[in-house]
Every structure is written in structure tokens, then in C-alpha cells.
């Protein structure tokens, strides 16, 4: 039934003004991401400019929510963003804790977090130890998340469950509850995937996590955010996700503070659709900068 319900959201027909508003909202929720071994300072600077001015021909567009990079590039990103007033409001998210596998000693992972925060990261995207979780040592996973949360200081924490490795909805739900109970505070996130494992985010997985967020909110009053990541490339998909959030958690979650898209190519598709609405015709992908 979870898959059936998730599929229902994709049958909503979003047209005209609703489409325009949805595309803009989705753009403002993007965590513009580059997580490759070959990432260079130049690429990250370019990404930051894109984050602040997604489409130079349309100044009315919002900035994206954040840029998401490896710890070594946090400093570069923060410095580039801080060059403009608009850029100062864009967060720098850093993956940490031995991303993407998390197969490192806890001290190393915590050090990774502290360094990223010191370098200026506003948000930390951690990975849980799937090995421990699947082995049934959930208490240890809980303690680790709590320790990472403490190391984050003022930075918001996003807990990546890597749902593609958990496989079942039961485990996704259990991991969601575990993460939220391990001391996450308002506007911290749970996140589906690293983007390095297939399958990454799916509608069904996201629905199960949204339901967990809803139940956690009613139990504790704390609003946790949701970030599906990986595999969301088209505007249409993004609108489906927004429909799902709106009809599962309601209006309060329809903000970048509580919902994000972890994506690299989604932004350009959103821009292409927005340009099409503005100009009446489709542009070439080459009309938009890659980063």
C-alpha cells in the first residue's frame, strides 16, 4: 500500500500557476551537490555562483537552499558564498563522518565533523553505520548519532540512512525513528541516501520517512526535515515529491527549512521549465551552466 499511495501522488496534475509556484519552491529547496573525488575549488566556486544566481537571465528566481560538498571544500564554498549578501543566506552543507560508507572509527568520524564545522559548514550530512544497524546493534548506532549531533554544535544535522542498503520499509521506518530519537532538534533532517548506492531516493521510501517525521512531531512537537537525495533529476519528479509532502505533512513542511532535494542535475531542469514558462519555448540544455 505504501507504493500504491506513493504512486497516487504522481497522478496529481500540476498546471499553470501551481506549476510555476511549485518549480520555484522546488528550486529554493535544492541542495546543489557535487561529491566527486575530482572536485576542484574552481568547480565548487562555480557551483556557489550558480547557487546564488541560478539563472542570470531571470533575477526573480530564489537562491537554492545550500551547496553540498566534501569537508575539504567547505572553506572554498563558504568564502565564495560570503562574497554577496544573497550568498550569505545560502548554507554550506558538508558530508562528513567518513562519507559515504561510514566504515571508520568513531573518533575519526567525529573529528571529520568538527573540522567541517570549524571550516564554516552550516549543515552536516552524516551517514549512519549501516553495518551496526543491520547487525542489530541499534543502541550503538543511536549513541553514534547522538555523538555526531553533539559535535555539530550550531550546525544542523542531516542523518543519511542509506535506504538502498536497508532494503525494507520496516527497516527504513526503524532507522528513521532511531535517528530522530537520538537527539535531533528542530530543523535537523533525515535523508534517504548518499547518492552512491542504488537505489537512491524513491517515492515509497520518502513516504515512509515522512510518516515517521509526522509521528515524531506528534510525540515530541519537534519538526524534523526531510531530504530525499539521488535519482531526482526532473522537474516532474520534484513536483511529485512536493505533492507528497503537502498531502502527508501539510503546509508547514513546504519550506526549505524542512524539505530539501539532494540533487545535482535537478536544478537545471527546474530552470529549463521555468524559462519555458517565461519565454514560451524550450531552451537547449547548453543554455544553462552546468555548475
Amino acid at each position, binding site marked *: *500500500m*505504501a507504493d*500504491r*499511495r506513493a504512486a497516487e501522488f504522481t*497522478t*496529481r*496534475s*500540476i*498546471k*499553470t*500557476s*501551481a*506549476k510555476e*509556484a*511549485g518549480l520555484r*519552491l522546488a528550486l529554493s529547496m535544492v541542495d546543489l551537490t557535487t561529491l566527486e573525488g575530482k572536485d576542484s575549488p574552481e568547480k565548487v566556486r562555480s557551483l556557489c555562483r550558480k547557487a546564488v544566481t541560478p539563472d542570470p537571465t531571470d533575477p526573480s528566481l530564489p537562491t537554492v537552499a545550500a551547496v553540498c560538498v566534501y569537508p575539504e571544500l567547505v572553506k572554498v564554498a563558504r568564502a565564495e558564498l560570503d562574497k554577496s549578501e544573497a550568498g550569505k543566506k545560502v548554507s554550506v552543507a558538508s558530508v562528513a563522518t567518513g562519507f559515504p560508507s561510514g566504515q571508520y572509527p568513531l573518533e575519526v568520524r567525529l573529528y571529520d565533523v568538527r573540522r567541517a564545522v570549524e571550516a564554516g559548514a552550516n549543515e552536516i550530512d552524516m551517514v549512519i553505520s549501516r553495518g551496526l544497524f543491520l547487525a542489530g546493534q541499534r543502541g550503538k548506532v543511536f549513541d553514534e548519532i547522538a555523538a555526531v549531533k553533539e559535535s555539530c554544535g550550531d550546525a544542523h544535522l542531516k542523518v543519511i540512512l542509506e535506504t538502498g542498503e536497508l532494503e525494507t520499509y520496516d527497516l527504513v521506518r526503524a532507522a528513521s525513528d532511531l535517528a530522530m530519537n537520538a537527539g535531533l532538534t528542530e530543523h535537523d533532517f533525515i535523508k534517504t541516501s548518499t547518492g552512491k548506492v542504488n537505489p537512491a531516493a524513491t517515492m515509497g521510501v520518502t513516504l515512509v520517512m515522512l*510518516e515517521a517525521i*509526522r509521528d515524531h*512531531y*506528534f510525540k515530541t*512537537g519537534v519538526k524534523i526535515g526531510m531530504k530525499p537525495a539521488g535519482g531526482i533529476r526532473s522537474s516532474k519528479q520534484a513536483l511529485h515529491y*512536493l505533492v507528497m509532502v*503537502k*498531502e502527508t*505533512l*501539510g*503546509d*508547514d513542511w*513546504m519550506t526549505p527549512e524542512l524539505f530539501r532535494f539532494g540533487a545535482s542535475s535537478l536544478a537545471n531542469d527546474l530552470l529549463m521549465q521555468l524559462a519555458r514558462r517565461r519565454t514560451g519555448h524550450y531552451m537547449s540544455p547548453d543554455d544553462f551552466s552546468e555548475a
Partner: protein
Amino acid sequence: MNEHASSQTEPKADARSLRFGESWDYAPAPESVKVEIAEKYGHYINGKFTTPTKTTKFFGSINPSNEKVLCKVTQGTKKDVDKAVDAAKSALTGWKRLSGKERGKYLYRIARRIQERARELAVLESMDGGKPIRESRDVDVPLAAQHFFYHAGWADKLKYAFPNRDPQPVGVCGQIIPWNFPLLMAAWKIAPALACGNTVVLKPAETTPLTALRLAEIFDECELPAGVVNIVTGDGATGQALAEHKGLDKLAFTGSTSVGKKIAAAAAERDIPCTLELGGKSPNIIFDDASIDQAIEGIISGIYFNQGHVCCAGSRLFVQESVLDEVIRRLEWRMKSLRVGDPLDKNTDVGAINSKAQLATINRYLKIGSEEGAEVHVPGGGEVPAKGYWCRPCFFTGVQQSHQIAREEIFGPVLAVMSFRTPEEAIQRANNTPYGLSAGIWTDKGSKMFELAGKLKAGVIWCNTFNRFDAASPFGGYKESGFGREGGMQGLRGYVKF
């Protein structure tokens, strides 16, 4: 309003509520396909649409979402029924002599043509009956096509369905169908009859004859031999004339139990076979070990699908006491995102009530429910259109087994919520009804599921799902929900003799 109501029962939840407002409202998304509708329609008899004479009487087919008359449809007289039965009789010899393979070809052709004209049929179905386009587009029309495809496959394999026997067609079948799934019910009736070599006189419901007439056009396009299917439109009197006709070899009826009893009597008088698919008051049982969010979806599709105009609707909800409050709370949230309105808007979840008369019936039960002491909940906000027949999805709590709303079929988006403590109690109360069409079980425990499924008196039992249909799966009831099966290999039995 809703916040107020919840504050009385759960003061804490007041501060923590989900807001389902207008923050990102979906713009209207009307279906753009325009369907041509003639001013007047005749019957389809012997391969031709009848032309009106001076004495022909018409009645209007109304769009229940705006009360406008879509077109005029012919009121069938006894003479019309005579002609139709005669045509079916004349066509019988040729049709049953045709090899199964050839009959199958016609059925395949019809199925493909339904697919090709799917959008048109879906729009027409929503205009004539008030059901949301997403349902007519995604459920009614594809399933109708599937029934023709499925039975096309059986046409030349009947001997395998009845090993060591020699299945022969029954003859001329009189078929009377209801207004809740007009095209789909026509397919359920016609496809197996034709596959088995019978000929048909079909009477669609008075309020929803248009898609059946469109189906007649499709038969015509597929060059189905004249008289194999005849369609006579009209009200109850036409139905009675058909049911009591001496020339029939079989009666098949889907509709209310009260009319079904009359049909059974008419069939008994002439000693002809009869299959009935009648009303229901089906239980949907939720255990505390179920996945509650999934179960909520099952409740929604169980009772609010097609405005509750579903004979197998899960209209009695039994929730294990320990999760009752949680289920009700989640059901209320979920219902806030149901969109009631224009059936032709692609984002509409719940459309218009089929007719003025049905709306009056539903409203009468809503009144009775409150008078009996149950509490009605209508979680969804927003205005319904001023014109048309509308009923917001709702449910009753505080319902007792003896209440009328827990015993009688309402056939609307109205749910009766009750609780139970033990599985034994659930079974007992679920079976304590004159009906027995369907039942739903929600639990993550397989052994419990099978234990219950064996004890529930219902023709169809869904486990961790509800209102799922397939041409390969037999459908039908126990007790006053009728007898005989439709669909699947078992459904063929009603259309053959040995």
C-alpha cells in the same frame, strides 16, 4: 473548526496539528478531451440504433455534478424488449455455432477498441455518473478492456475450464446492471456471456446509460454480428419487462438486494438460471499489529472510492481497541487531503453523488446515524459546488452493532467505525450481517490473516489491501449479497450448461 473539535478531546494535539491549507494550491486541471454527445439516443437492437417514432418517450440523462441534462435517452417499452429478445434469439444460432476462436477474435477486437477510445469513454463516464476522472481513467475503463481481453482468451478454451464436460451456451441472457460502474458492469456481464456463446439483452441503469450506448457503437465498429448484443435503455419498468420476458434463458443482475429478490422470483417462475450480485455492508478489520498508515489507505480506498457507490465497499470499520484513537486521528488527517469537486478535474479524489435520489438516501442515513446517537465526523474543509449532488466524505464514531448505519447499505461516502478486543469478537461481529460480499483484514501477522480469512463469511477477502479487482479473480457474494461469480474461471459457470 476542526482545531476546535480536537481541542476538546486532546488538548495537547491542538498545538501540534498538521495544517492542510492552501499554501500551494493545485490550479484547476480539467480534462481537455471533449466528447460528442448526440441530442437523443435510441436503443441498440439487432445491430442498429432505433429511430424514435411519434409515441417514443424519452428521459434525460443528467450530469450529477451540475444537474444539466446531457441528452435524451429512450424509455424502453415492452415492445422494445420484445424486439431485443427476438433479435438475440435469432442471432443465437449463428453465434453459438461460431468457433470459440472466432468469438475470441471479436472479443479481442472489442477490447482493443475500448483501449483506443479509452479517454473518450472515461470522460463520458465521469460526465454521466459523477465519478472522478482519475478513477474512470485509471480503473473503470482499463478494467473493462481487461475483462474483454481475459474472456477472449477463454472463448476457445472452455473445455479446459470444465474438464470432461461439454460446456454449451445457456442461450439468451437478460442482463441488468447498476449505475455505479456503468461501463465496467456492462463488460463484466457481456464479455463472459459472449465468450461462452450466448447472446445478450442488456439494460443499463436509468441514470447512466451513455457509456453502454458508446459500447454499442464499438460493437458496431467491430462488426459484431447483429443481435448478439442488444441494449435497451429505460427505468425500472423496462428492467421489469426484461426480467419477466418469457424468451430469456438466463437472468443476470447486479444491483440492490431488494430488486435482486424480485429478479430471483422472476427467474424462479420460469425455472431459468440466475446470477445475482447484490448489496453489501462489508467489514474492514484493523488489528493493532497492522501497519496503521497502510491501513488508513485501505480505509480510504475501501469506502471513499467512487463516492462509496461500491457494493463491496468497506463500510463497517472494526478497529482493535488499543489503536482506535490513533486510527481515527490519522484517518482525519488523511481525509483532509481528499479533494471533493468537479469530476472532470484530474486532481479530484471524490466526485459527485450519482443522482438526486441517492443523495437523499445518503442524507437520510446521515440523519438516522445522528439520531441513533453516533457522532459524525467530516474532516475535510472547503466548499462543494453550489449546483450538483454532493456529499463530503465522513465517518461515524460511537456506532453500535444494532444501529441502522451499521446494518444497512448506505451506498455513499459514509463509514461506520466500531472497535473490538479479540479476533473472535471481530469475526463474530463482522459476520453478523445479512450480507457477505467482501471483507478486509489488516495485520502484519500472516497466521492471523489466514485464520480469519477462513472464518469470515464473504465472497472476497482482501488482506492488507482493499477494493482491488482483476478479471482473473472471481467476484461474488454470500447470503444476501447474491450468488454466482463474475470474473475468473468460476465466472464462466453462470454462462454455460452441460
